[in-house]
């Protein structure tokens, strides 16, 4: 075990160097474990669909789950709230397929965002 001073600095002993190396390895292991833990935890919280997220934020389920995870409510789609009621008794009660803004979104997000490749 050698110990001394070089230009005002203390030389690290062999024992200290070994301890430092072991500490570094432990920190590396802890960080890798933490990354793994966060990955598995995210899989469980969001589900494989949310993690895969192949459609990016166009995937309504991924967005919905992400919003649920942070405790936020998905926004009410504007299409369902701003559509004017047809006037008069002769107006057709059934909407044509062309009138619809898009398929119903289970997440309540705007349908445009629910279609892959819409943007």
């Amino acid at each position: 075990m050698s110990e001394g001073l070089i230009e005002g600095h203390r030389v690290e002993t062999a024992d200290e160097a070994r301890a430092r190396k072991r500490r570094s390895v432990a920190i590396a292991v802890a960080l890798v474990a933490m990354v793994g833990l966060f990955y598995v935890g995210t899989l469980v919280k969001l589900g494989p669909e949310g993690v895969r997220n192949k459609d990016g934020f166009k995937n309504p389920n991924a967005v919905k789950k992400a919003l649920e995870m942070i405790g936020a409510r998905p926004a009410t789609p504007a299409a369902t709230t701003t559509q004017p009621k047809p006037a008069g008794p002769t107006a057709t009660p059934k909407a044509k397929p062309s009138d619809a803004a898009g398929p119903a979104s289970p997440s309540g997000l705007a349908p445009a965002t629910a279609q892959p490749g819409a943007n």
Partner: protein
Amino acid sequence: MTTLSTPAADTSDVAVSSTARGDVGDYIALLKPRVMSLVIFTAIVGMLAAPTPIHPVLACIAILCIAVGAGASGALNMWFDADIDAQMQRTAARPVPRGHVTADQALVFGVVLSVTSVMTLALFVNWASAALLALTIAFYVFIYTMWLKRRTAQNIVIGGAAGAFPPMIGWAAATGNVSLESVVMFAIIFLWTPPHFWALALYRARDYERVGVPMLPVVAGAQATRLQILLYSIALVAVAAVPGFIGLGGIAYMVASTLAGAGFICLAWRVYVTPDGRENDRAAKRLFGYSIFYLFAVFALMLVEHAGAALIKVLA
């Protein structure tokens, strides 16, 4: 390869120098692994006794966070108490007084682990359990370690709340709230803490006296402490019967916990009637050891009965 480190300002003040030869084991010792084992166990019981099931992966994350949070508060306790730890026989071998880890390193280690454990619990489990974990750490560090420990003989009575939170955190991790059952589990540990620590303080009174920590035997004397131990033991055994009435434990729990409680009161009585001296130290040591077994037993009984009931439900 030779590396250089800055010299300590004062070579006699090893514990606060910038150099440290701490090994991984020293950092694990900072987490107080023995205390942590009791924390983990009671948190698991709180989680499994809850009526709402929790995903196994999230349960593991919650337990890990509770364990790390408890360990972090232990590290912060060792950082603050390094001066008195060095003078007490029981704590002189801790990493900071030995100079293996500097006080600053213990502080940083504790803060990083505290923040990480609370945030991870909030992110993956729920905010209620994370808030309780944060409260536990804050209570142990600020209320017990920094405020009460060196000021009042009631330090471990009030400070004992910090050790009583883990089953409540486990329950909150599963259900997202706090209910009567978790409060009862809290109360059991809360009432268990004074007889447990005062039994230790009885035969370590000189240590506490030397460093000026006003533990009950130092301030009020051994006889008053023995009476308090007996009274708290009776209250503990009474509260430990409550789970049998609120569905946390069944008949097996009631019978076994009553028998274990009778043993606790017998040992507390023996401490009370044994005159000062080595005989009394021996009685206090026996009570201290038995109190650890008792708490494990009471929570294990709850766990076994819940696991048994769940198994019967599955088989039926």
